[in-house]
């Protein structure tokens, strides 16, 4: 009996191993064999639509290296599992999508698989892009194929074992990836459906705005409830506009303003979101931005945050923080923490100040920087970087102070956290 059990277990392990590591292969479809003919891909109206959708999806942000040719890839994306350079998606033969057919492109965007059926690393957000409709995918493909080809050979990912073995993604996909186009909800308005489609699909907002587990998956996280961006060390706040939500108190207009101009009466985009606004959302049509706001308004209320009462005596740190605030911050953000409308963001009730980790406020104090340059705000005001002027203790004090002043009730930040985030590489 015992022998039998062992034999069954061994057989199961072998079967499991075979399932896991059996390479899946696929024969690429050549452009000439594609069901989409060349004339369709050259349709100017389709290309124009694809251009807009590529901006909505912010494809260029990841697929362009610093100072490099647009869409030629080469930006190295840091993950906890290693670095993955983005590929060239211009229609270059040999190094880009020159030999790709629409069927190949659809397979990548919708199923997360390369031309030959190999699994793609989910740093390419096919967990969201799978919701994009075939029609929209065709437009994006037509646009990409209309670009001037750039010769830029792909760089190899630098991943730790076992992540370096692509077939290991089979297990990851079984856990975290559900393939399928966006399904309309007939009980909701057109605007809600459009917003949900953009947010969940092409906009891939959830890829940053939800927590990831130790394997980088998001299956257990509430949608758009906020999360720390691994390796980059920024916190993408909760996007619920209802009770206890990160955007509680925001109006539809505030959402539209932030996405259109980079700032609203409730906050200013910075860090990775500044890039999203500059490259993507500021160029979106007004009705699409309103649709996004409509959808965000329907996100559920969140449970009230429980801030652990510190066992430390926090009075000294808060008193020091008040002193630093009065000297360095109050002239612009106001003693009341309410900022100056249209110029400096409020800190009072600001979701990025109050996010659970304190990373955002810490890094903004250290790095300073400009609000994104947009058509609506072409000459933004800026914040001085305090990296050279404030010690780790002073940064911790002032960040703790703003997180616990006015209506803010977030946790304090420790000096050791500042040490960590002061040295996060900037990208």
């Amino acid at each position, binding site marked *: 009996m015992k022998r039998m059990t062992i034999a069954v277990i061994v057989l199961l392990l072998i079967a499991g191993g075979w399932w896991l590591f059996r390479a899946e292969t696929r024969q690429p479809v050549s452009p000439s064999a594609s069901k989409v003919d060349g004339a369709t891909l050259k349709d100017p109206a389709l290309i124009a639509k694809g251009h807009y959708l590529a901006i909505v999806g912010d494809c260029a942000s990841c697929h362009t290296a*610093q*100072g490099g040719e647009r869409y030629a890839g080469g930006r190295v994306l840091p993950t906890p599992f290693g670095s993955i350079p983005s590929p060239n998606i211009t229609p270059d033969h040999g190094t880009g999508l020159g030999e790709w057919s629409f069927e190949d492109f659809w397979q990548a965007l919708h199923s997360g698989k390369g031309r030959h059926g190999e699994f793609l690393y989910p740093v390419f957000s096919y967990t969201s892009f799978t919701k994009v409709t075939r029609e929209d995918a065709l437009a994006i493909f037509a646009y990409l194929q209309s670009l001037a080809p750039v010769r830029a050979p792909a760089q190899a990912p630098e991943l730790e074992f076992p992540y370096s073995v692509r077939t290991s993604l089979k297990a990851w996909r079984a856990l975290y990836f559900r393939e399928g186009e966006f399904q309309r909800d007939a009980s909701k308005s057109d605007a809600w459906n459009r917003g949900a489609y953009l947010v969940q699909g092409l906009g891939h907002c959830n890829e940053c705005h939800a927590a990831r587990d130790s394997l980088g998956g998001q299956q257990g996280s509430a949608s758009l409830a906020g999360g720390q961006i691994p390796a980059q060390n920024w916190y993408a706040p909760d996007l619920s506009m209802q009770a206890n939500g990160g955007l509680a108190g925001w109006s539809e207009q505030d959402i539209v303003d932030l996405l259109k101009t980079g700032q609203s009466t409730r906050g200013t985009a910075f860090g990775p979101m*500044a*890039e999203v606004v*500059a490259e993507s959302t500021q160029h979106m049509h007004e009705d699409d931005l309103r649709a996004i706001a409509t959808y965000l308004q329907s996100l559920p209320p969140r449970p009230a945050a429980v801030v652990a009462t510190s066992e430390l005596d926090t*009075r*000294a740190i808060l*008193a020091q923080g*008040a*002193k630093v*605030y*009065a000297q360095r911050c*109050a*002239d*612009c953000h*106001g*003693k*009341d923490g*309410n900022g*100056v409308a249209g*110029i*400096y963001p409020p800190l009072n009730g600001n979701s990025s100040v109050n996010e659970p980790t304190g990373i955002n406020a810490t890094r903004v104090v250290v*790095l*300073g*920087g*400009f609000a*994104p*340059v947009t058509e609506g705000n*072409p*000459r*933004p*005001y*800026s*914040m*001085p*970087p*305090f*990296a*050279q*002027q404030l010690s780790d203790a002073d940064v911790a004090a002032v960040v703790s102070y703003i997180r616990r002043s006015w209506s803010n009730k977030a946790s304090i930040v420790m000096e050791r956290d500042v040490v960590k985030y002061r040295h996060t*590489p*900037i990208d």
Partner: protein
Amino acid sequence: MRLEPLAALSRVDWGIMKGLSAKCSRAGRVLGAWVVLVGILLADKANAQDVAHPDIPDTLQQRIAACTACHGVHGEGTPESGFFPRLAGKPAGYLARQLKDFQDGLRKYGPMEYTVKQLSPAYMHEIAEYFAAQDVPYVRSPVPNVSTQLRQRGEMLVTHGDPSRQIPPCAACHGSQLTGVQPNIPGLVGLPYDYISSQLGSWRTKTRSTVAPDCMSEIANRLSDSDITAVSAWLASRELPADMHAQAPDTVTPPLHCGVLSDKGDGA
């Protein structure tokens, strides 16, 4: 200003608190806590009566606080340490090019790359013009003691170059008085020793580069380590000319092809 009562209160309270907690007096601590709390409440009340903010001036100077925090309100830099370079009076084309080079990752310095990442070309030019127009006195920086021989070598390189190693004189591009040439060539006098030598080093380690052909990178790589010391020391110790402004445009003929000068010059 009106936060001062709070700060003052807290300071006084801390004096009391330290004394009391040293005696492990729980009652004292509770009392102290109440005093602090009342202080905070009072200060809060005072805040509520405040005019929320001073007027924020609608000036470029106010907008670019992220720049002036390190480089100075007038771009005077930190001549004592040499760490944050002076921007005042440098030609606008040169300054705008540096911003673009940081944006493109050709010049490497994380905080600068982060700060300029989202700026538009138009805004970068406006910022460059601001600093180019600043006219503030030069402050001398400490110069290391170098041998007479090395100093002479420095002078030789700056004024005559070293033809045997294809090193052109600095003055050939940077102007007869080494005060730069409008609109793209910076001056070399009035800069700290540490700044000059670290820039020459950066061209060799590729943490500073620019659009090809990168003539300064070629020159820096032809210099020996001691040449860099010699040139930097001589430049940093040179008496400043009465007129520190950059020469008029098109008054030099660069001996090398330089991408930053739209590849003018007649070969090297």
